[in-house]
């Protein structure tokens, strides 16, 4: 697990077809299941989300913070499948708890980025030239600063913590949502059925909410999944750097950071938190890819 993973923001799915195919949810799920990426992504993301939900409701095998002085740095055994750390805490319980915290932060971050980015993108695409120019120049400025740097600045300004991590990560992802949404909205605004709606006397609000937004929802779904992957990684990186939620909140990034010096003698302290991060990131990325394939009729295999 390296910090550089946080650096470049993931690429935008620019060539997703503008118009979602009206095949209904069942058709979409089936198409998702039929693409290899989608199937693996769905399973991995499902496992991660299930684990996080279980942990959030206290369903971990042990109390994650319980320090068993009689079981320091134990190998993986049947009673501690992921082993124990230098304080005698059960690593499986810590990993599950950490996943829960990670996903909570990631979801909040994606919600912040998604809502603000989508609104800004829709406004930039649908409203006049000046509004659009202002929004896009601000977006460009945010793009010019690497997302991790932006997140570091926000955390440095607001201080470390659960909510501040989410804000920091969310702000870093806003410009991607703006760009991803604005393009299709711009294209749809001039599309045949939006023109037809204008001729039929539909209000701008109706055109925007009934005809344009629903037709970019597929793109939003893809982007949300990719954003979740990036946010989990970003959260891990922030806490690796010691800028995540302070202890005793469990954190995968912090576990990886702490395990660095122990890894030579106790590999399990490093391996399991790292694998958890990797599974979550790959799961959401593949899910995003699968969704994109499922939505875009040109890449869909029949």
């Amino acid at each position, binding site marked *: 697990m390296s910090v550089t993973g946080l650096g470049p923001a993931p690429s935008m799915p620019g060539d997703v077809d503008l118009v*979602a195919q*009206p095949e209904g949810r069942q058709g979409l799920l089936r198409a998702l299941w039929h693409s290899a990426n989608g199937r693996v992504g769905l399973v991995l993301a499902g496992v991660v989300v299930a684990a996080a939900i279980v942990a959030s409701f206290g369903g971990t095998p042990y109390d994650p913070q319980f320090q068993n002085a009689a079981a320091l740095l134990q190998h993986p055994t049947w009673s501690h499948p992921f082993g124990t750390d230098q304080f005698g805490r059960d690593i499986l319980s810590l990993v599950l708890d950490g996943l829960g915290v990670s996903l909570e932060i990631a979801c909040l971050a994606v919600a912040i980025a998604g809502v603000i980015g989508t609104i800004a993108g829709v406004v930039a695409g649908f409203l006049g030239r000046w509004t659009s120019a202002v929004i896009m120049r601000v977006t460009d400025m945010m793009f010019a600063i690497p997302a991790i740097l932006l997140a570091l600045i926000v955390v440095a300004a607001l201080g470390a913590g659960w909510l501040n991590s989410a804000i920091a990560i969310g702000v870093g992802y806003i410009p991607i949502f703006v760009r991803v949404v604005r393009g299709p909205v711009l294209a749809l605004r001039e599309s*045949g059925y939006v023109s*037809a*709606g204008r*001729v*039929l006397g539909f209000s701008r609000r109706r055109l925007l909410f009934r005809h344009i937004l*629903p*037709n970019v929802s597929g793109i939003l779904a893809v982007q949300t999944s990719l954003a979740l992957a990036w946010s989990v990684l970003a959260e891990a990186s922030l806490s690796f750097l010691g800028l995540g939620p302070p202890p005793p909140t469990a954190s995968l990034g912090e576990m990886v950071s702490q395990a660095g010096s122990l890894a030579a003698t106790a590999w399990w302290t490093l391996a399991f938190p790292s694998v958890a991060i990797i599974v979550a990131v790959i799961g959401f990325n593949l899910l995003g890819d699968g969704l994109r394939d499922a939505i875009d009729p040109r890449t869909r295999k029949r």
Partner: protein
Amino acid sequence: MALALRTVGLEKLYPMRRGPGVRALRGVSVELESGSTLGIVGESGCGKSTLARLLVGLERPSAGSIELFDEEIVSLRRRELARSLQLVFQDPYSSLDPRLTAATAIGEVLAVHDLAGRGHERESRIDELLGMVALAPRFAGFYPHELSGGQAQRVAIARALAVEPRALVLDEPTSALDVSVRAEVINLLVRLQDELSLSYVFISHDLATVRHVADVIDVMYLGLVVESGQYDDVLGAALHPYTRALAAAVPVPDPTHGARRRVQLAGEAVPAPGSAAVTSGCPYRPRCPLAEAECALSRPELVEIRPGHRVACHVAKRDASVPAAEQA
């Protein structure tokens, strides 16, 4: 006869960052008599679709005015304009929202304009509208991609009729359709015109299509009307060399008819903005077999040569003024 639609000196300039911009319309005056059909013919880039967009209010003219049933359309609110004038687009698949069934698309229009109540009342009105375009009620639940091109275009027509308009602008309504269903849609439009006493502006690049519907034909070239008249006059006794070229391109479905004299058009249909053909003289001059010195000097005005038959051509005007020179 009352006028359904009239434009006076309509101009549309699309500015460009550099250069003079594109003058899509350069002073177009057309008249549509109530209950009749005005055919607008011209090749790609002549401004006919721009004219359609201006008529329905999708864009504003740079100059000139549009009157709809004796009212300036700039004084009409968008919803009022929508109630009296509707547009049928070329491609039904792009003009219908892919996520809406035929019934939802038509129902939305009824809802927006507070027509036909709600619930059962609205449903029966939707069925009635589908019936008007000869679609069975079972098509109400179909999505655009489940419909054939002809069926989708009928849904688009039914949606336009939902507001009970008095006039329709038909922008190449059959060009995107299979040849086999074009006649069906044309016949449908003719029948609807009779039943609902609609006025049509029928835009096409194809004289052969327009001849079936139009009472009056205006031929457009590079943003100008170059010939205008009753369809017999324009098609049978074309005065403008461009109209003659168009007429000669209409295929004759009769193998014994023999080879007609074909008129080949040379050169580009749409010259670069700011080139001589657009700025001075007759716009058709670079491609015209009859071009003379005068054609480069001044732009010919649209003048009445015979009653109701107008042409913008120096040569045609001079020939017509010499009684001995009988036109073919």
